């Protein structure tokens, strides 16, 4: 955690490339440049949270104090295969069709 007086971190182009691959975004050269600058600025802005001492504060992931919700364990019909496939860019009678999962890119 950055200390209060520490300058907020600056992202490098390599950081942005790494995050883009995690996010599965083939960013263009121009986008890599603009996002390197913009993300550094935004990360600097959100880093002001480090001013607050939250060591004793429990994280709040959900706004209301709700418990896990269970339903009766009874099978109900789900979306029909044809309906699920209807919007797919490529499909056959029963499957979504995608490029090769293994192998070099560019061989699609």
């Amino acid at each position: 955690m950055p200390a209060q007086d520490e300058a907020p971190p600056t992202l490098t182009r390599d950081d942005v490339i790494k995050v883009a691959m995690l996010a599965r975004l083939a960013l263009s050269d121009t986008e890599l440049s603009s996002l390197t600058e913009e993300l550094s600025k935004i990360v600097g802005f959100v880093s002001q949270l480090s001013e607050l001492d939250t060591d004793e504060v429990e994280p709040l992931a959900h706004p209301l104090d709700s418990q896990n919700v269970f339903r009766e364990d009874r099978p109900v019909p789900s979306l029909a295969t044809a309906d699920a496939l209807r919007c797919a860019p490529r499909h056959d009678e029963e499957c979504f069709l995608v490029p090769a999962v293994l192998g070099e890119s560019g061989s699609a």
Partner: protein
Amino acid sequence: MTITTTPAAELASALQKGETTSVECTTAFLDRIEATNPTINAFLSVDRDGALAKAEAVDTARAQGKPLGPLAGLPVAVKDVLCTTDQKTTCASRMLKTYKPPYDADVVRRLREADAIILGKTNMDEFAMGGSNENSAYGLVRNPWDTDRAPGGSSGGSAAAVAADMAPLAIGSDTGGSIRQPAGLCGITGLKPTYGRVSRRGLIAFSSSLDQIGPMARSAKECAMLLQAIAGHDPGDSTSLNTPVPEYLTNLEKPLEGLRIGRVAEHFGDGLDSEVAEHVEQTFAAYEAAGATIHEVELPHASYGVPTYYLIAPSEASSNLARYDGAHYGHRWDGTPSDDQGITTFDSPLVEMYCRSRAEGFGPEVKRRIMLGTYALSAGYYDAYYAKALRVRRLIRNDFTQAFEKVDLIGGPVSATPAFKLGEKTDDPVSMYLVDLYTVGANLAGIGGISFPCGFTKNNLPVGFQLQGPALSEPLLLQAAHQYQLTTDWHLQRTPAISS
């Protein structure tokens, strides 16, 4: 009676009395959309045939004395973030340009059951990310009060549609202020209900712990009518609240005697436009005159709301938007090689398809937030950013809990300024994020908030007032806004003529 300028509550009674028909009303609004949408761009799609067919069915049923739903024959505009089986649902994204969902959102199902007429789908910031409606892949929306200005966002299309008399009622969604801020900037009334009051099933997910659907209309009374129809538990959304839905309309007429309204000194700091401040102070005075008492309250962590929000919302978005993979639905890269010198190496053909489909399908702001969220959740940064934001979120919620021990509602501005010029903030993401300053707290705390017009600037731009209340305080929020609207006519003002 000019149908398009008649409030929905009066249209409902005219329909019941047989003074007009749903076909006549629906036609009037469809014609108004046709005339003004080329300028305003509030609608992404209009379902003229479907709307008129439904209107005719409602008129026939009424003539035969059959029982009808509570919104029978009333036209409604629906933000394009809600799934509709009979109309495309694009989320204002190229990613979903041709997407026709296989099921209706629960809110859409309830609107159909209430016999409302769905006119079409409204424009918005792509995937509901933005505060100006300039992030739509299908063109920006113009503010009907001044077409050089932004309507606010992300529900800018719904707000502009109501303000421009293109629809008497509209559905919006609010993740950090996306109902209340455009309502304020367009001079209409909009309610963000308590988290879970309205089912999110079929709402295209942005930030699942913050998203909530709500009504937008001219008045609090009409928001109450619409909320009544859409609120309630849905087994298809396990976060929807399984508590009874109160009668919102019958509660409206109670006077405000004894109501305690909080005023937060920090709301009136630097950056608040002086005309906005003046109208907000006058609104506090009007409440005092109506029998309420005003009390200073503190929200010590309020200034941390925007940075907290811009860690939590992008983190959840980066996860939610991972579903757009070019395989199941949505845009897919056609395989054309690119000579761009950006990211060029991929682990496999499948990964290249994912990466290129997403790069083509998402617009700049959506990419920015996915990147920010992915960064905040990535190894080494999770604790410093995402987990830290969740801890501050608890502090922000605790501030509200403590304030609501002293007061019933908290009042204040919705936005620091009236509607800003198109293009004014597009080069600086952080300045755009700060437009959510007064609204993100309610989403982080999961509580309710309502925005309604409380005056106009010298340039004839509407100013909004916000009331926030504890969880499930919708009856009180609507009542307090309605009582104000009984003695003021800001919400009845109509925009200047819209040139086509």
